[in-house]
């Protein structure tokens, strides 16, 4: 037991001695959380600039332009007399869309002759393009409904009934768990978890590479798997404790700071976080054992953030990916963890609802442990051969 504590102590010394691990594990998680988290502080995109080209110059065309401008999501940046003028600003990315109100727009609309407006969208970015489209469609539907209502009123139908007749079926949308359908509430919780994951992988991985190069794992030929696991548990205890604290701080401080919903029992969350951290530690040990230098590990793992996040199924459904990638996604701890975290924290699920994800993480822990055993035996044999040769 004494040895366990001495390893634990030497790990602490390593962390404070190795500035890189110190930065990655002690500074980066909190710094990143506020730095990146604040990008989405406003959560919603509002006042997306668009241009209006009004060829009609009528009361109705001005009214439409005004209604579009008062919409929360978009803002009319300028009125132009020709599409070419508007296109200049569109090409310079100063406006993301152009609304063209044609000549005779008012006359055709009022006479119920059927008019058209043109909406040109810059679809190189979906979020802004979708919001403009939604806002303009909503304004036009309202105006069109008003025109139909006028017809019924002119046929001596009372205003209230005319209003209903103008739109016989009213769609009522209820966005559950994200009432305003905003990007911040959707992405930020998982981005924060991703920050925890990536800093742990990089920081702990550096420590493992160091251990294989200079520490106790450098003499793996003298160890059995039990001793190896004991050393690993002593090394990782500090990280487990630190990252459980991070999870607690994130849930209790950073989530409320960014007004993110956080449901479910904190104890259950921390229990699942502990399991997630354990799987990450096993996998990190396994993969870091292939690296010769800690810098090399950081250099390569810097590229893992996007691939790990994008394959997790959070931003793009796993069943829309090729079979091989679906299998790969399910081998990663982030896939079940993001899923169960979202179910618990955002949707308010209970333990019964996340059993599959929980079991999935447990299976990954066991598989990781087994693979680590195989890897350890391989390293040990390699070192024995090397020792004999020397």
């Amino acid at each position: 037991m004494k040895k366990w504590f001495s390893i634990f102590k030497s790990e602490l010394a390593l962390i404070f001695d190795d500035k890189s691990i110190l930065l990655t594990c002690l500074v980066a998680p909190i710094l990143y959380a506020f730095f990146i988290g604040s990008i989405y502080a406003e959560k919603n995109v509002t006042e997306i600039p668009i241009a209006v080209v009004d060829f009609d110059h009528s009361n109705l065309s001005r009214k439409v332009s005004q209604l579009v401008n008062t919409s929360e999501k978009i803002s009319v940046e300028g009125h132009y007399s020709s599409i070419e003028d508007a296109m200049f600003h569109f090409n310079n990315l100063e406006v993301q869309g152009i609304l063209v109100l044609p000549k005779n727009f008012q006359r055709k609309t009022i006479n119920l002759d059927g008019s058209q407006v043109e909406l040109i969208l810059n679809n190189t970015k979906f979020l802004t393009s979708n919001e403009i489209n939604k806002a303009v469609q909503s304004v036009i539907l309202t105006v069109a409904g008003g025109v139909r209502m006028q017809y019924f009123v002119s046929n001596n139908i009372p205003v209230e009934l005319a209003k209903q007749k103008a739109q016989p079926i009213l769609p009522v949308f209820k966005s559950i768990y994200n009432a305003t359908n905003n990007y911040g509430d959707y992405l930020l919780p998982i981005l924060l978890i991703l920050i925890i994951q990536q800093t742990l992988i990089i920081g702990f991985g550096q420590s493992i590479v160091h251990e294989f190069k200079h520490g106790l794992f450098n003499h793996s030929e003298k160890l059995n798997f039990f001793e190896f696991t004991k050393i690993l548990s002593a090394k990782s205890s500090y990280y487990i404790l630190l990252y459980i604290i991070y999870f607690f701080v994130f849930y209790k401080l950073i989530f409320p700071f960014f007004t993110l919903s956080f449901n479910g029992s904190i104890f259950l969350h921390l229990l699942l976080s502990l399991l997630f951290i354990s799987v990450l530690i096993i996998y990190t040990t396994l993969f870091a054992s292939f690296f010769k230098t800690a810098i090399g590990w950081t250099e390569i793992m810097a590229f893992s953030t996007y691939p790990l996040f994008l394959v997790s199924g959070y931003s793009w459904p796993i069943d829309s990916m090729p079979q091989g990638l679906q299998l790969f996604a399910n081998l990663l701890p982030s896939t079940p963890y993001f899923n169960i975290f979202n179910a618990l924290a955002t949707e308010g699920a209970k333990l019964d609802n996340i059993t599959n994800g929980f079991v999935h993480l447990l299976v990954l822990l066991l598989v990781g442990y087994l693979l680590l055993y195989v890897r350890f035996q391989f390293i040990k044999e390699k070192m024995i051969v090397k020792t004999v040769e020397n």
Partner: protein
Amino acid sequence: MKTILQIIIIREFIRLKKRPTAWVLLFVIPIGVFFYLGAIYEEGAIKNVSIAVLDLDHTDLSRKVISNVEASPKLNIIQFLNSNDNIDDIFINHPEIKGFYVIPKNFQKNILNGKQEKLLVYTNSSNIIYGNLIYKEAATFINTMSSGINLQTFKLNGIPHEKAIKMVMPIRVITKPLYNAYYNYLYYLVPGLTTVLLQMIVFLLAARSINSEYSNETYNALLNLANGSVFKIILGKLIAYTLLGLIVAIFIFSVVHPLLGIPSSESTLPFLWVVLAFVMANAMLGIMISTIFKNEAIAMDVSFVYNSPAFVFSGFTFPIMAMPAFNAWYAQLIPYTHFLNAFIKGMEMNTPFSFLIQPTVNLLVFFLVGYVITVSIFMFRNKKVAV
């Protein structure tokens, strides 16, 4: 006879050849990760979303609503709910259901009596991709149904079919989504991801270019080789990393994107000038970091902290104008933000080169800042040594 500059460039390539992680950055990332990212978005769009229906009316009209929903190519009804189901728990108990319609009681009766009826659409918006898709499909479908009812009313009032159609939809919006008309996620995201990784590759490679000379104790040999000229050292290394970056960039535009089926742009060749400025800026900034931090690990950490959020700060997925002032300002301090601006204009929108001048100049400013700081540090150090 090779010049000193050529010797420094070749020497840099040989040093990289000996570093296994450089091989990973130059071969595994472009070949493995780029295609891996492409494979994730292979389908381009979400083709099927599972939904449920709660029909509280059970009439011909409500059944018509259901059959119309079923006819939607993107929505797949996987469950019919009943009044005993707790609406609040549907998404928790059935995570596969991403949205559901509720057809209220007396739906048919009220509509036939000329009264307005509501059709409720619940979406699990913890994932806005599904939420938006269901919203779009439902909005189109409900407005079409509503229009159908209006059409019948107008025709019953003796209005001719042609005129009735115009009355149903007095104003039509003709939407023209340019540059990615089919909302294809592969076309949308992958060019952004591959180019942001290009920045990281060049930056991270260059971030070990100078400090590794100190840690390998080869700096003095290099200085002798360069006849004591730090300018030749910087230039030699800059050319080496710029060349590598350009090769990766050409690989992206000529192999990765075409093989993934991403439409190529007619402006690719002239756009290579912008790519050159982008790659040079990152190579120079990487060299600058490598000069500032003699400790390679710290240089790598700083490079990681600077580069890894480049994508989210660039405004690609979440617009810069929606960010708080500080974040919007910080976004301007990353070369990728300016490159993306030029990339969207030049490669995706095919705008004339004049629109690319400003972002290209911005990239050159990054290069200049990197160069001035690097040279200043070298001069300061040399002065210190001389003293």
